[in-house]
């Protein structure tokens, strides 16, 4: 037992994978996705890395040798189970990893589960074509099968330690918002560019203990003016654009706490704000509010989208909405698909995925009116609870007019 609210039973996770491996006829699991590394090791692996999970006993992670000692220090695994690879005889990643895998395989031929597929998330980490062929050659006589569903199905329902890490990361994002608010009020915004707002938020979050603005989409995503209103635009790395009166400001913050991720967007209107801008803002806030009230076990991405778009139609702003209201989330590296790879388009979210209690996702809405140079984004990590959802960030929902 432990009193650490952020405790995760990683050995139990490995045993759960090994149990599923046996059921699926997999002798050794070769993980290569960042999400798998995070979920199994409790350490950040920014370099190309692998984890070899044997039928029984401890797994062994491999990473670029320059970072192996640090990763071992951060992980629950010891330094004998976090190894480095390097471009040297016997120590290149294909040789080092396949040599270990072979030691676990029956000589008569075994099955190696690998992680293959595709993603629109660049740091996903599926095996490359070259790696697949190289491992296949190095493991001649054995069979490689795609087994990523094992980790995906086990990682779907979040345990208490993971949820608490996300709660903490959510509070850190809130600290970033507070820092931004303090900087921009009373005309303060006129002094800053988008990049400076990103930095102010970063300092606020770091002061609160966040270790990284984790998003691959540009760290803290800040947009002002017309950049808030890109059609379908849900990715705004900050620029040196100066904040200007009369424009919207979108502040999308990303904090990290023990591989748990904070992701929250707050929006402002920099005074003076027109009645039309306020109308857009009210549409957006009301829709986000309805969306958060709707998330619950039993609904699906498509059923939620249908309901939200009916509301948008009734209020006369459907043309400004991107008809998607979520993306997946898990420990660092798990940022895209909701649930398992079981939808009509391989490796994308299944629109009919039915949410269950204990799942987490990012409630994500993008409102954009390029013709009027205005848009808003909402993101917040949410936990599906018994009869609704819990937001990880507690920052009050509003589009504030900053004088």
């Amino acid at each position, binding site marked *: 037992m432990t009193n650490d609210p952020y405790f995760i039973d990683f050995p139990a996770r490995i045993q759960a994978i090994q149990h599923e491996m046996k059921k699926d006829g997999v002798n050794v699991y070769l993980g290569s996705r960042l999400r798998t590394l995070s979920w199994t090791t409790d350490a950040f692996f920014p370099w190309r890395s692998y984890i070899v999970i044997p039928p029984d006993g401890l797994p062994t992670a491999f990473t670029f040798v320059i970072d192996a000692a640090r990763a071992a220090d951060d992980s629950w695994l010891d*330094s004998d189970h976090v190894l*480095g*690879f*390097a*471009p*040297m*005889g*016997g*120590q290149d990643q294909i040789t080092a990893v396949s040599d270990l895998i072979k030691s676990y395989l029956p000589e008569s031929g075994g099955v190696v589960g690998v992680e293959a597929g595709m993603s629109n998330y660049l740091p996903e980490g599926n095996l490359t074509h070259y790696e697949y062929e190289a491992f296949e050659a190095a493991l001649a006589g054995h069979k490689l099968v795609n087994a990523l569903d094992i980790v995906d199905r086990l990682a779907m329902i979040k345990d208490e330690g993971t949820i608490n890490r996300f709660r903490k990361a959510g509070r850190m994002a809130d600290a970033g918002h507070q820092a931004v608010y303090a900087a921009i009020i009373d005309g303060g915004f006129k002094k800053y560019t988008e990049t400076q707002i990103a930095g102010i938020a970063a300092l606020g979050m770091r002061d609160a203990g966040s270790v990284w603005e984790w998003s691959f989409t540009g760290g803290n995503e800040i947009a002002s003016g017309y950049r808030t209103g890109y059609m379908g635009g849900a990715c705004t790395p900050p620029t040196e654009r100066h904040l200007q009166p009369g424009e919207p400001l979108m502040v999308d913050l990303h904090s990290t706490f023990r591989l748990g991720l904070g992701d929250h967007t707050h929006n402002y209107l920099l005074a003076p704000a027109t009645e039309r801008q306020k109308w857009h803002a009210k549409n957006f806030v009301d829709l986000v509010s309805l969306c958060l009230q709707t998330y619950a076990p039993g609904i699906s991405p498509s059923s939620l989208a249908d309901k939200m778009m009916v509301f948008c139609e009734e209020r006369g702003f459907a043309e400004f909405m991107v008809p998607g209201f979520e993306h997946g989330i898990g420990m660092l590296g798990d940022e895209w698909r909701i649930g398992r790879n079981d939808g009509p388009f391989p490796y994308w979210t299944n629109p009919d995925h039915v949410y269950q209690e204990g799942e987490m996702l990012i409630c994500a809405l993008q409102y954009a009116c390029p013709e009027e140079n205005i848009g808003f984004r909402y993101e917040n990590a949410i936990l599906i609870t018994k009869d609704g959802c819990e937001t990880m960030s507690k920052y009050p929902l509003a589009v504030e007019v900053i004088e």
Partner: protein
Amino acid sequence: MTALKYLSPEWATEAAKRLREQLTPEMMKNLTSSMITLYHHCPDGKERALYYKIENGVFTDISVREAPMPQAEFVISGDYDTFAKISRAEIGSRSALMNGKLRLTGNMVKALSLASIVDRFNKILSEIPCEY
């Protein structure tokens, strides 16, 4: 000193003597480990190994072995000719590793921390007059 035949029992005895004399436990960082350099394609066609056992910075065993080879924490393997070239300073051991002429088995991170120690005793071994 007359030249000794590389990897002969006489060479191994001289190697052990020099290593023990010239490397103090402090210079060896009080290391406890074991290492084999495995020589493929020796001139007589056999495979041989030079086995080092180090306890608290002291060489407790330096011996030339033939199959069955003992277990060791680190194994560096390659052709006899490659090791001979390294001993004659014709190529560097790092270069041989980086070019894949030598193969290292063992924890790479630990191996990095031991690289300077291995350099020290390789230098001592390279000073033994020998014929190949």
